[in-house]
């Protein structure tokens, strides 16, 4: 009884090793192979990003240039032809060029607004979940107040106060969207902080800030990525809605919402004015949403992070 089995003692590795999980990249490639919809949506997202970044190279003309030959003799927009691939708008500007620069605006607003919203949401959610008590109550009631407004209505109300500009559109969307992440992050942190490795770090004497940074935040990353991808789609839609209503990105800068709004008036004589930005918007939002769904399945934040 005194020494159970000295022979066993020498071998630190008598147990079989757990099989290593396949690498994330490998899993991603395999799932893309089996899911063509996800593959296409991911390619579309990459293409949209490239077009946005390299807009001056893709765009045939300056999007704000008014062509002297941009309108027909009776003052109507020109049909798509060899010179203007997607026709011209009622001001005699090239629609394709405006579409490409509109992509830049949409993605810029979507990415920056969502990034800002994620930072605010993660900070608020993490502090509320980790600290608890009265701090949590205050932060989460604040979140509930913002959440209780429909997000578009909330943004419209804010933008009428701040005045329309690209910067304000970004700020307003971020201010409406952070609440979603704050709620999700809080509930994740609530369960993470009860995990034994967090308790172990505490009893080791590791400080709270370090615990949050080293043991909590890394576990939130998959969730943040997934919800940010979905957030980009939402933000792009909100931006388009605001621009459609004339309180988004100010003219003459090209944006899809504004193009749709203008195209609506000329739908009878120049349907491409409505169809081109409409399809662009649908494809973009759909691609980000589908890519987000694929990421959710891949990273599976809820089941891998909460249930281990």
């Amino acid at each position, binding site marked *: *009884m*005194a*020494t*159970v*089995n*000295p022979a*066993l*003692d*020498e*071998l*630190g*590795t*008598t*147990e*079989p*090793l*757990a099989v*290593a*999980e396949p690498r994330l990249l490998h899993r991603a490639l395999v799932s893309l192979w089996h899911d063509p919809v996800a593959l296409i949506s991911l390619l579309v997202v990459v293409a949209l990003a490239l077009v946005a970044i390299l807009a001056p190279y893709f765009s045939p003309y300056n999007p704000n240039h008014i062509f002297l030959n941009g309108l027909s003799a009776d003052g109507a927009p020109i049909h798509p032809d060899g010179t203007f691939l997607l026709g011209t708008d009622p001001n005699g500007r090239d629609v394709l060029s405006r579409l490409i620069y509109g992509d830049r605006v949409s993605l810029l607003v979507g990415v920056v607004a969502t990034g800002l919203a994620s930072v605010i949401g993660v900070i608020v959610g993490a502090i509320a979940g980790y600290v608890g008590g009265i701090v949590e109550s205050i932060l989460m009631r604040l979140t509930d107040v913002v959440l209780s407004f429909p997000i578009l209505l909330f943004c419209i109300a804010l933008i009428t106060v701040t005045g329309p500009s690209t910067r304000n559109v970004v700020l307003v969307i971020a201010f409406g969207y952070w609440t979603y992440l704050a709620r999700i992050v809080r509930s994740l942190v609530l369960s993470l902080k009860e*995990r*034994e*490795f967090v*308790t*172990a*770090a*505490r*009893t*080791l*004497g*590791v*400080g709270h800030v370090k615990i949050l940074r*080293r*043991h909590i935040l*890394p*576990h939130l990353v998959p969730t943040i990525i997934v919800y940010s991808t979905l957030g980009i789609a939402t933000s792009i839609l909100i931006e388009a809605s605001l621009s459609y209503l004339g309180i988004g990105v100010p003219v003459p800068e090209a944006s899809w919402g504004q193009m749709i709004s203008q195209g609506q008036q000329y739908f009878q004589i120049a349907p491409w004015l409505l169809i081109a930005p409409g399809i662009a918007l649908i494809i973009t939002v759909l691609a980000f949403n589908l890519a987000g769904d694929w990421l959710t399945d891949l990273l599976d934040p809820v089941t891998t992070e909460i249930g*281990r």
Partner: protein
Amino acid sequence: MNKEPAVTAPGKGTAATYAGAGRDHFAPIVDVRDLEVHFRSRRALRAVQTVKAVDGVSFTIAAGETLGLAGESGSGKSTIARTLVRINRPTAGSVTVAGEDTTRMRRDDLRRYRRRMQMVYQDPYDSLDPRMTVLEAIGEGLSVRGVTRASHRRDTERLLDRVKLPASLVSRYPHQLSGGQRQRVSIARALAVSPEVIICDEAVAALDVSIRAQVLNVLKDIQDDLKVSYLFISHDLSTLRFIADRVAIMYAGRLVEYGTSSQVFGDSRHPYTKALIAAVPTIGGRGGGPRIGLSGEPPDPARLPSGCAFHPRCPLAQDICRADRPALRQKQGGQMAACHMAPDAPAGEASV
């Protein structure tokens, strides 16, 4: 078979440390007195309930000694562990570690104190951060002790050697390790801050029997080398019998028997202890004497029975057991037990 603590580890102090009355001359490293940990449950539309998870528990642990703590689930074992490392706050009583009262410590004092008392957790799959390598996990403890980053690798390899793991594991992630290996990494992480006391809360319960033996031997070797004390919590009496110098048996938040390993296991006085020992399955049918059936469930800690909390399940219960709660008193045989039916030791006999 079951060793006398005084002779196991040469150099662990004089025999007097373990020989009953002599203990009082040595300051114990951990001195828990009348510890109470109560939880209040507040639910809407219901009266506030107070659950006395730990209700007046006292014990000491000497330097280099192992105190075993046993009892059924819900008896308060883990609450004691979590209170000692200050995850839970004590409601009343005192916890003195190396002469310092830790009960009212805050912030900086508390962080300094935490280094002296470490814990190894039950679940080896949850107690290591899945996103940290062995080096990072153990390095976290080293950083707390003030070891510079440059020495982390060397010190981590030393600690791995102490828990008999190969140095090549430093860059592994927990999911690449087996349960026994993870538990050793947890032990190495605890050792990284050079604690004086390590609490093992069911630390080997989740391991296979053969792996369990390896880990227990590692713990014993560490104790022989570093003179750390263990508070070893387990519901498995055979594990305690192997590792513990002294044993405390808990029932419903209180100690019911407390003495040296040989006193408690060889000559138990409390009917609950006897029932626990009888319930240990044995190979070949050589059971530990006549079976004392332990029927019924452990009591609801929010509504404890009157008198002795064990009386509804006790085969010896008399009227006095239903009326009066027995105190923990010295019994014939030398150990302390809380039972009206066990005869007290004659006055003047050596205490535990």
